[in-house]
């Protein structure tokens, strides 16, 4: 018990939880936007890799940190556009296309890395984003170091949570996106473009996913490694269900996962001699599954998720 309180009582733990949650916040928001419009984007895992790679390489080649962020988002948008062409315009299977995008984006990223840097043996480093202090807030005891000493990308992720919620629930655009994921016929009958909304949602959602990847190479670490995304994209797909497709709950889910992960690292350090390390590594995933079981049974899926829309056919 003492161990538990030691960990939960340290500001360091909470800061780590938020840091670990950041790429997941980007990813789960991106997946949420796609799925609200009715498109499952299993390309997320590969788009993470592409974002991580593209952002890092841009900075390495001198683009500047925010230039790198922009390049990463563009790379994500590009793969999103491909996924949208295949699934929305051509109406192909979203599962098949998504997995194809993941394989393609991962391979292209590795290939680009190797081609751009043929002679390096150890991954070159860049000057990554550093934690910023927010005057006043960051100086608060406990709360300050726990919540307000993060890198700019973490704050950006939080801004996006609010922004996505605002657009989704407070603008006609959000109305249209929620409608097109429930019943595309309702959108078409009101004179909006089903294709346009869905393509747009997938492109924007994919750009956000890529920012999750960019956080890894430009904020959490300062270099690009093979295999560094390590399933984070897939976790986001599960978190969307956990979040019932709501931005606020998506943030909560990402933070919960971040907390599990930060907790297991610390627990491992404290009682790692007794229990094998793999048990701790497994923990956040196990807890995600438990959380999903509790929530997903009542999940209110967008009704038109996975269903392609073809105009001029009988429905």
């Amino acid at each position, binding site marked *: 018990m003492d161990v538990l309180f030691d960990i939960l009582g340290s500001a360091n733990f909470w800061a780590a939880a938020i840091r670990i949650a950041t790429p997941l916040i980007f990813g789960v928001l991106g997946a949420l936007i796609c799925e609200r419009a009715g498109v499952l984007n299993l390309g997320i895992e590969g788009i993470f890799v592409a974002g991580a790679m593209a952002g890092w390489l841009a900075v390495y080649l001198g683009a500047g940190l925010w230039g790198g962020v922009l390049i990463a988002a563009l790379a994500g948008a590009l793969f999103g556009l491909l996924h949208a062409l295949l699934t929305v315009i051509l109406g192909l299977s979203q599962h098949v296309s998504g997995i194809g995008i993941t394989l393609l984006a991962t391979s292209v990223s590795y290939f680009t890395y190797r081609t751009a840097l043929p002679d390096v043996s150890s991954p070159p480093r860049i000057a990554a984003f550093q934690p910023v202090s927010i005057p006043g807030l960051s100086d608060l005891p406990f709360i300050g170091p726990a919540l307000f000493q993060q890198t700019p990308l973490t704050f950006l992720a939080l801004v996006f949570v609010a922004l996505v919620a605002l657009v989704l629930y407070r*603008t*006609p655009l959000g109305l249209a996106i929620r409608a097109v994921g*429930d019943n595309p016929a309702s959108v078409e*009958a009101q*004179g909006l473009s089903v294709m346009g909304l869905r393509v747009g949602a997938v492109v924007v959602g994919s750009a956000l996913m890529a920012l999750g990847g960019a956080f890894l190479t430009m904020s959490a670490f300062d270099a690009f490694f093979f295999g560094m995304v390590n399933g984070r994209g897939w976790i986001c797909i599960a978190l969307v269900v956990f979040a019932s497709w709501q931005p606020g709950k998506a943030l909560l889910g990402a933070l919960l996962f971040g907390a599990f992960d930060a907790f297991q690292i610390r627990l491992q350090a404290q009682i790692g001699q007794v229990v094998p390390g793999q048990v701790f590594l497994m923990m956040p995933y196990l807890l995600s599954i438990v959380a999903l079981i509790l929530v997903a049974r009542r999940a209110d899926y967008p*009704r038109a998720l996975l269903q392609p829309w073809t105009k001029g056919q009988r*429905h």
Partner: protein
Amino acid sequence: MRSTPTMTDAPVLLSLQNITKRFGALTANDGISLDLHRGKILALLGENGAGKTTLMNILFGHYVQDEGDVQVLSKGGLTALPPGSPGAALKAGIGMVHQHFTLAENLSGLANIRLGTEPLLSFGREGAARAKVQKIIAESGLDVDLDRRVADLTVGEKQRIEILKALYRDAKVLILDEPTAVLTPQEADGLFVVLRRLAANGLGVIFISHKLGEVLAVSHRILVLRGGKKAGELVTANADRRAIADLMVGKAVAAVVRTPASPGEVLFALENVSLHGAGGRSLSGVDLKLRAGEVVGLAGVSGNGQSGIAALISGLAVPTGGTMRLYGETVTRADPRALVANGVARMPEDRQHDGVVGTMSVADNIAIEEVRSAAFSKMGFLDRKAMRDRATAAIAGYDVRCQGPDAEARLLSGGNVQKLILARVLERGPRVILANQPTRGLDVGAQAEVHRRILAARDRGAAVLVISEDLDELFALADRFVVVRAGELHDAGPSEGLDRGTIGLMMAGQSHARAEMAS
């Protein structure tokens, strides 16, 4: 064949010229022309599959015609609408209320009405939208809760949202596809009042229907379609009921005669049954007996517990209190397959949604309830040939109009889906039959056919429960009436000696109306 001189006073709002549309080998519309005048209600009358809905979908840009033009009145006179663009149709002032609603069920009614009417990135327009909708509601009488999720609304309320959607966009032309198919008689009368008021204010209305009575009641002019072609066009005031019916069907329809019943043993019973459920499904203290060789008609305003009773008989729910018996044995488990195997036939209320699997073939849908039986399987494998043979026989025997046993069920019109379901459930020789809204949305010919089949099943000794919002239908079929209100069931007795007024009063909550009227 153009309009009569009295009609030329008002300007033409909309003109269709030689519209032709083919689906594969089927020609759904064959060179159809029509004119709609300002302030007039034009009825488009025809049987299921006559091409009414297809024509309207072309007009609204959901389908692209193979030939012909849609012209709409704009500032410079009649101009052709670009084909296949609902946006252009909306902009030109055409509003459409589809038979199958185009509503996003996860959104509120107000959100559905606003959808697509505002700049995509804008804020704070909800208040103005609400005020405008409430003004329209006040003027038209289309009363509905704007803030409830559409998924939680009744069918009638969803339709009101659909009409409001069109009016909200200042439609000049309002198209209603089978609008009364989902309404109670009272609601339908209310709708007619609304439509006449809207027409008087200058709207042009196209009213698609297969019900002669209401077409005569509400329209100024009637255009009859048959087999995708224009069969005739007439002014309602001069129209003769008989002549229109013949135009529509192409042959005379014989009335269905119900012979006196000879009720036998009780096959299905609910004893003091209660059921907890959401959305008008709850029941309390319900007693119901279905006897062999008797049709029981269940009347009631939609949402008073009909769906609960239907769920019980369908095996989708078991009572939370009381006893449900099938052939005298207590049913304790919700087990649709066991019920079906024991001779219970079900015609679901929402036949498109619950009755068929749209993406599966007609043959698959015919066999779907008994794929495990020896009739359709051999050593655990599907017997495709038997399924196709049964489907071919059903298509012929029940006049299911489709491209054949391999056609996808979603391509069938509503009436043909119902015939498919009839073929599926009646060919087994069921002993207990649940017919939930059996002819909702069906035309005269198909309706008579369904009624004949149900009565034939009764005469064979089946116990039948008909749930319907159409009182005429209940009087045509039922030997005995029960009325459901607020989850309670009231016995109204044999149908002889009952009239619409008595049932109407019981539906409205005066369960002792019969006794009072007798005294």
